[in-house]
C-alpha cells in the first residue's frame, strides 16, 4: 500500500514537471527552471520562520513569490548590472540558494522538518505518514491532496492554451505580431513553475527538481513528431520512470527521489540508443 501511495505522489509531482519541462526545453530556459527550483528555498525558510508551520497557504504563497522574484532578479541583473545571461542566472541561483542554506543553518538545528538532507533529496518517504482516512479506508495522503489541484491546473493550462503555446514556442516574434502577449504566457508558465517547485519541495527537494523538468521532456523530444506528441510522450515517460523509481528504490533501500531521476535518465539513454529515427528529429522551434 505504501508503494502505491508513493507512486501516486511521485506521478503527481512528475506530470506537471514533464509538461512544464517541454515548454522550458523548447523555450531555451531550462536553467531558469533550475534557478527557480533553487530559489524557493529561502522563500520557504522565511515563510516558515514567520508562520511557524509547513502546511499553510501563506508558506505556499510566500515561497512561490520567492521563486517568481528569481526571474525578475535574473532580468534585473541582465538589464541593470549588464551581466551576461549565463552569469546572471548563476548569480541569482547562488545568491538565493546560499541565503536559504544560511538561514536554515542559523535558525534550525539538525533535526527539524527542514533539514539540509531534505533540501537535496526531498523526503518523499515521509509523505505516507500523514494519511487522509475516510472511515477505515485510506483515501490518500496530504501530499497527494496538495499536488492534485496543481496537476489538474497544469494539464488544463496546456490543454486549453495549446494553440497559443504552440505558436509562442515555434516563433515568438510572429506570435507577438498576431497580437498575443508573450509576456503573459511566459509569466504564467514561470508562476506555475514556482508553485510546483514549492509543492514538490517536500517530495524531491530543491536541487533534484530540474531532473524531473528536463529529462522526460528531452526523451519525448527525441521521439515526438509534433508538439502534441511531445507533451503526451513526456507524461507517459514520466509515469513509467516514477513507477520504476519507486519500486527499485524500495527494493535496494535507498532514497527514492534520486532513483526516480536516474530511471528517467535511464529511459533517455535507452531511447537515445534504440531510436532509429534519430536523423529525422524535428526542430520544433524557429527562434
Amino acid at each position: 500500500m505504501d508503494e502505491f501511495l508513493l507512486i501516486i505522489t511521485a506521478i503527481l509531482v512528475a506530470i506537471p514537471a514533464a509538461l512544464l519541462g517541454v515548454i522550458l526545453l523548447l523555450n531555451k530556459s531550462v536553467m531558469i527552471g533550475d534557478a527557480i527550483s533553487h530559489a524557493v528555498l529561502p522563500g520557504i525558510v522565511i515563510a516558515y520562520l514567520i508562520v511557524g508551520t509547513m502546511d499553510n497557504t501563506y508558506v505556499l504563497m510566500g515561497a512561490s513569490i520567492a521563486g517568481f522574484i528569481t526571474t525578475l532578479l535574473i532580468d534585473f541583473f541582465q538589464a541593470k548590472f549588464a551581466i551576461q545571461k549565463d552569469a546572471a542566472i548563476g548569480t541569482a541561483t547562488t545568491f538565493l540558494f546560499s541565503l536559504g542554506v544560511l538561514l536554515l543553518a542559523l535558525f534550525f538545528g539538525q533535526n527539524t522538518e527542514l533539514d539540509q538532507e531534505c533540501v537535496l533529496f526531498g523526503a518523499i518517504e515521509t509523505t505516507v505518514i500523514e494519511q487522509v482516512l475516510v472511515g477505515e479506508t485510506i483515501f490518500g495522503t496530504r501530499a497527494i491532496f496538495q499536488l492534485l489541484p496543481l496537476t489538474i491546473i497544469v494539464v488544463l493550462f496546456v490543454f486549453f492554451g495549446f494553440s497559443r503555446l504552440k505558436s509562442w514556442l515555434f516563433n515568438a516574434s510572429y506570435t507577438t505580431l498576431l497580437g498575443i502577449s508573450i509576456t503573459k504566457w511566459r509569466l504564467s508558465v514561470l508562476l506555475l513553475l514556482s508553485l510546483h517547485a514549492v509543492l514538490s519541495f517536500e517530495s524531491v527537494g530543491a536541487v533534484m527538481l530540474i531532473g524531473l523538468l528536463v529529462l522526460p521532456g528531452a526523451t519525448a523530444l527525441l521521439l515526438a513528431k509534433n508538439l502534441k506528441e511531445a507533451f503526451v510522450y513526456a507524461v507517459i515517460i514520466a509515469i513509467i520512470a516514477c513507477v520504476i523509481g519507486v519500486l527499485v528504490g524500495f527494493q535496494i533501500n535507498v532514497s527514492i527521489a534520486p532513483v526516480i531521476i536516474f530511471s528517467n535518465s535511464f529511459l533517455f539513454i535507452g531511447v537515445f540508443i534504440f531510436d532509429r529515427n534519430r536523423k529525422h528529429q524535428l526542430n520544433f522551434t524557429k527562434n
Partner: protein
Amino acid sequence: MSADFSIVLLFFGVTLISVTAGIIGYFNLLQKKSLIGDALAHAVLPGIVLAFLFSGVRESWILLIGAIIAGFLALTAISFLLKHTKLKQDSVIALVMITFFSLGLTVLSYVQLKPLGNQAGLTDFLFGKIAALSQNDLFFFSVLCSIILSAVFVTFKIIFGFAFDSSFMRFKGFSGNTWSFFMNVITIIIVSIGIQAVGVVLMSALLILPVTSAKQLTNNRNKLIIWTVCFALFGASFGTFISLYSSQLPTGPLISMILCTTLFITAVLKRFTLLAKNYG
C-alpha cells in the same frame, strides 16, 4: 603552535583555491560557459562517491582521480549529445548534470547505510565544510592550485586568445582541440578541489561571482584579472574567518553570500559613478 599553523594553512589553502577558481571563472565567462562549471560541480559527485566506495578510504587524491574521470565523462557526454541530437545546449548540460548528480546521490544514500559511511563525512561535499579538510589535503590542494596557476600564467596569452576569438587562434596555427582539452582539464581539477571546500551546490559561486563583480569595475583585461583575484581573496578569507568562529554555518554559502554582497556593492557603485559622470 600547531593549531596556529593549521589555521594559517587553512586560510592559505582556501584563498588559493578561491583565487584559482576565480581566474578559471574569468576564462569561462569570456567563453559564455559559466554554467559549465556549475554542471561539472554536480557531475563529479558520483566519481567522488564511487572512488570512496571502491577504495574504502577518504584520501583526497583518490577522490580527486574519481572526480576527474566523472568530469571527463560528463563533458564527453555533453559534446556527444550536442552532436547527435537536436536538443539545445542548455538542455543537454542540465540533462547530463542531473543524470550524474542523481547517480551520485543514489550511491551516496547507499554508502551512508554502511557502517563506514558515517565517518567519511561525504555529505560535507554537498555544502562544504572547511573544518573537515585535513592538513595533508590542504597541502596537496595548495600544490595543485599553484601548478594550475603557474600553467595558466605561462600559457596566458594562448588561452586568452582562445577565449576571446577561437577561430582566429586556429587560423594562427594553434590546435583548437588540444587547448580546449587543456582548459577542460584545468576546470575539472579546480572544480573537484573546490567542491571539497565550498560544496557541490555553491561551487559555481566561486567561479562566477568574483569575475562578475570585477566586470562591474573595469573592462581592461589586466585590471579585470587583478580585481578578480582581489574579490576572490576577500570572499574566501572573510568567509573562512566567519565559518571558523561559528562552526554551525556552512562555509560554501557563507563565501557565496559575501561574494554576492560585493557584487551588489560594486554594481551600485558603478551606477552611482555613471550617474555622476552623466549629470555631474
